[in-house]
């Protein structure tokens, strides 16, 4: 299968603290990759390095036919990568001065020069798909956390990116709102959209992922099919983590 994104040897330090110590990742077309790991293991930083929200110190990124060294990426490369990817944030980060529909349209109209009428049509279609067709004129402050995150997913999907990066999309939500967001993410996965998801939702990882990556202390400890990782982890570190998580939340896997 063709690779959408390949990352090789990413390194990133914040001051003296080395957060990523040479991480490589290969994401294939249509795949759902879930990155697991304890907090502080560098999962989020890895995701943010992919679309240059953090500037990695070293490593290489290949997206389609474009290959860039993180350290030497120019403004144009960064913009190209950002226009081929989309991101869903932990804190939603909807544009608070724009309505739900305008949030979805913004990247289409301003960044990709899609005609406004067409963008509006696409925005309405995507909002309907996440079950918010009636909320297109609502401002983010008028929506619940779960609704905001669903708008954010619609905003990402509407851009028709080669990959959507999810950065702990359910971590900031009230427990009873997690389900609606996961359901939308499942629907997105079923459409065959390539996703890289950082999450603590084990059931989602188990049911939806094609590929699970376990990270700890800035390195990939183990990766493979979800069945392998969840039922036959090879590394002691992975076992410990899974035991802790599963005891804590009592997931039936």
């Amino acid at each position, binding site marked *: 299968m063709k690779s959408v994104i390949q990352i090789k040897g990413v390194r990133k330090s914040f001051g003296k603290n080395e957060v990523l110590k040479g991480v490589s990742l290969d994401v294939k077309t249509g795949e759902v990759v879930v990155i697991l790991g304890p907090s502080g293991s560098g999962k989020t930083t890895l995701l943010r390095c992919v*679309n240059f929200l953090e500037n990695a110190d070293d490593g290489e990124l290949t997206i389609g036919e474009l290959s860039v060294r993180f350290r030497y990426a120019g403004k144009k490369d960064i913009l190209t990568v950002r226009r081929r990817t989309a*991101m869903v944030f932990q804190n939603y*980060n909807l*544009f608070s001065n724009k309505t739900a529909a305008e949030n979805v349209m*913004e990247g289409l109209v*301003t*960044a990709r020069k899609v005609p406004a009428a067409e963008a509006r049509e696409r925005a309405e279609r995507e909002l309907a798909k996440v079950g918010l067709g009636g909320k297109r004129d609502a401002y983010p402050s008028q929506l619940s956390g779960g609704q905001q995150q669903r708008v954010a997913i619609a905003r990402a999907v509407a851009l028709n990116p080669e990959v959507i990066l999810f950065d702990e999309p359910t971590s900031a939500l009230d427990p009873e709102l997690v389900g609606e967001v996961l359901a939308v993410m499942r629907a997105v996965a079923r459409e065959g959209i390539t996703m890289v998801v950082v999450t603590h939702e084990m059931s989602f990882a188990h049911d939806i992922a094609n590929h699970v990556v376990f990270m700890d202390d800035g390195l990939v400890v183990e990766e493979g099919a979800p069945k392998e990782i969840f039922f036959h982890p090879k590394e002691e570190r992975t076992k410990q983590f899974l035991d802790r998580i599963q005891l804590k939340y009592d997931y039936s896997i």
Partner: protein
Amino acid sequence: MTFDSVYVWVSLKAALRCLHVTLLLSIVSLVLGMVLGTPLALCRKFRVRFAAQAADVLIPVLKGIPLVLYVLILNFAILKPLDALAESCAWADKLRLMDKIYIGLAALSAYSAVIVSETMRSALNSVPEGQYEACFSVGLTRGQALRRVIMPQALAFAVPVLCNNFIGLIKGSSIVYVIEILDVLGGAMASAQVSYRFLEAYIAAALVYWVLCAGAGRGSKILEKRFAGR
């Protein structure tokens, strides 16, 4: 001499004849302050080389100088070089009678640029970092992000403070009487030169400034409501 309200009325009429000068001074300096101050704030926010460093040093210094000194310093800084010219061309009279409103405008605008740049800087800092990241993640450039998302939100934060800045400029503009510009205060005082009714004249001027500031305050409330509608 007892207080005589008739003279308040006389001075009030004199002050109102000069109302346009006060309005011109405060509105033009607010607008110029925004035009000059906003780019200054952006330079500091995004650490534009040289401009940011220069602003970091200059703005705290300029913020510490009272408005009356802006007026006096600019008055001499602008007039002194003209003196020599006037002497050689026999313009002495022209210079003496020159309309000094341009000096007042320059002083108030410089002062306003400093104040407004601080207002805009804190407004820009009030927009969460996540808003920039969201812009970048959908592929907007920094300029597009500023125009479409960041500045509209920063302005909403800035409106009440800008209105306060404007009220400060209306009242501050009265200081131009030291270089003999006939604004509301100057007009009221001029009317008292004949009658020596200074207390009445000051009270008349105070009334006019109070009404202007109250009006600006009302305007602020309306603008705030419009921006808070989302």
